[in-house]
């Protein structure tokens, strides 16, 4: 079948302006997008830049967007994308600095962020005699996370990265999980502090896009939630988030449901005059529409005592 690839082009050594090149290629029914790209480079245009390595969906090198859908060029069958039209659009991943054509800056996109979470084990040497083996049941969960092959699809799907490129992102935070939950690691609290820094776990909106995009079923969103739950248990170190979570928990524990007015005030901090002033215009607008929740005048729900008991038991469990 005859396919026209419309490929994103950008050459920093020329004018650096993005554009597209069209290549018409004859391919068989079973061909993949990578087959097409290799044919173009071998036979038509050796200036076309793209990355690829294993060619069997394992290394994550050839991640790109095919008709705007992020996937691996080596496992994307051309026939799956040409049902409506014999044209295929190829683009680099979104929101990432492009080096040339389909080659983007992996360091800025992911590797620098993975380095930032200290991706190595700091073993507690004192408790071992040369080896520190874990039972298979403990390793099974970590092994799942370790099966990540850094393809970048979770970061591509992330909702936060398009508005803030400096967010650590699901790939790096999933790497953080791998060490936060390794019982042999002695960095413990320090690791949580790194994950809790601005642009870390608390900037995640837990929208589950990352989990939906992960081709390995590693569930990066759930991993980030687990790190947050752990931080909640041992004490959140990000001050503003700590105030927010403490207030949220306190109002549900005391009354069974959320006191939104109180949450807004206490998240800013009751002594933080500047922060409280900032709330005024929003509060005034809401009040003008008769809808600003009044803080602290918050009746208990029936059953609140039982909720409190559950809370207290849950809190005892965590210690």
């Amino acid at each position: 079948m005859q396919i026209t690839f419309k490929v994103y082009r950008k050459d920093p050594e020329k004018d650096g302006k993005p554009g597209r090149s069209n290549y018409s290629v004859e391919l068989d029914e079973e061909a993949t997008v990578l087959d097409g790209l290799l044919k173009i480079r071998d036979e038509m245009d050796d200036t076309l830049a793209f990355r690829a390595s294993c060619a069997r969906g394992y290394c994550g090198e050839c991640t790109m967007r095919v008709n705007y859908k992020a996937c691996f060029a080596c496992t994307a069958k051309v026939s799956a994308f040409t049902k409506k039209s014999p044209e295929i659009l190829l683009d680099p991943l979104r929101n990432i600095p492009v080096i040339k054509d389909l080659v983007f800056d992996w360091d800025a996109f992911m590797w620098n962020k993975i380095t930032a979470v200290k991706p190595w084990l700091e073993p507690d040497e004192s408790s071992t005699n040369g080896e520190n083996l874990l039972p298979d049941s403990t390793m099974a969960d970590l092994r799942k996370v370790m099966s990540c092959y850094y393809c970048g699809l979770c970061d591509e799907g992330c909702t936060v990265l398009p508005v803030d490129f400096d967010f650590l992102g699901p790939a790096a935070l999933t790497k953080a999980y791998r060490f936060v939950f390794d019982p042999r690691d002695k960095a413990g609290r320090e690791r949580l502090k790194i994950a809790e820094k601005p642009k870390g776990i608390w900037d995640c909106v837990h929208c589950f896009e990352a989990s939906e995009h992960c081709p390995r079923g590693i569930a990066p969103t759930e991993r980030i939630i687990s790190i947050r739950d752990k931080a909640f248990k041992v004490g959140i170190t990000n001050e503003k988030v700590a105030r927010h979570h403490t207030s949220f928990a306190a109002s549900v524990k005391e009354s069974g449901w959320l006191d939104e007015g109180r949450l807004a005030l206490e998240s800013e901090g009751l002594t933080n005059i500047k922060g409280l002033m900032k709330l005024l215009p929003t509060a005034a607008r809401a009040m003008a529409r008769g809808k600003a929740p009044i803080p602290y005048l918050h009746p208990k729900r029936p059953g609140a005592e039982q909720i409190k008991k559950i809370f207290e038991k849950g809190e005892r469990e965590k210690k």
Partner: protein
Amino acid sequence: MKYAFYPGCVSRGGCPELYPSAVKVSAKLGIELEEMKDVACTGAGVLPQDISDPINARTFAKAEQLGLPIMTICSTCQGVMAQANYRLTSEPEYRAKINREYLADEGLEYKGTTEVKHLLWILFEDYGLDRLKSQIQRPLKGLRVSPFYGCFLRRPPEAITPTKELSRRKNYLDELIEILGAELADISGKGKCCGFPILSANEENSLAMAAKHTGEAKEKGADCMVTPCPLCHLNLDGNQPRAEAQEGKEIGLPILHLPQFLGLALGFEPGEMSLKRHIVSTQTVESKVSMLA
């Protein structure tokens, strides 16, 4: 048709226009509601799972005693409860532990049979589209509407779209807009996050998200946006003026709650759906609606 109604905190707090609209619309449709009053907040993804799962198990056990499925009117309540219910029903040992350690004290036991459904799902899966169409008194012709789902009404798949048939849930709001006679102004961000969950942790990013989605709808010529999630509403409507100021652009997009939008098509007047309680003026929507029969 009868449901154990779980209104959530925000429908009576930050978005008090939502609760009465939902109650009125349900009554008009003939959906009978028994409100659950002695149950707690779901935890909203803020409380850790080992506290929120027992609290939600208690809610499910109470509904089970009533012999009713739960109806929610909030994507966040729906998502958090559906995720908890997925864990509690797919792992019987986990459920048994929660029953033993948390619920037995109150003489409760969750057997794992409670269904939790958002009003939007109920319309499609229980109520039926033919019956719904027969109730439309004012087709919303000429109104251009963008959908905004709230993340938790679309993901994660195991709890929200567990079968191929139910993957259609990802499209219900788009479908409903057209069923009610309005025009769909589709946006790429309809299934993304509104930014509300990080309003406290990173306000700048949160407002940037709100501006992005409302701005996109405006560019697509939408008269308004409709959302089944009051938390999305808090950010997209309540914080729209701040998002506009931060991003330096005027947006002015009215955001309707799902029951309000539905109510207008069922013949309710804008006043009956409390549209005046919104932060962003809904005047353009009201004018268009008043010109319809």
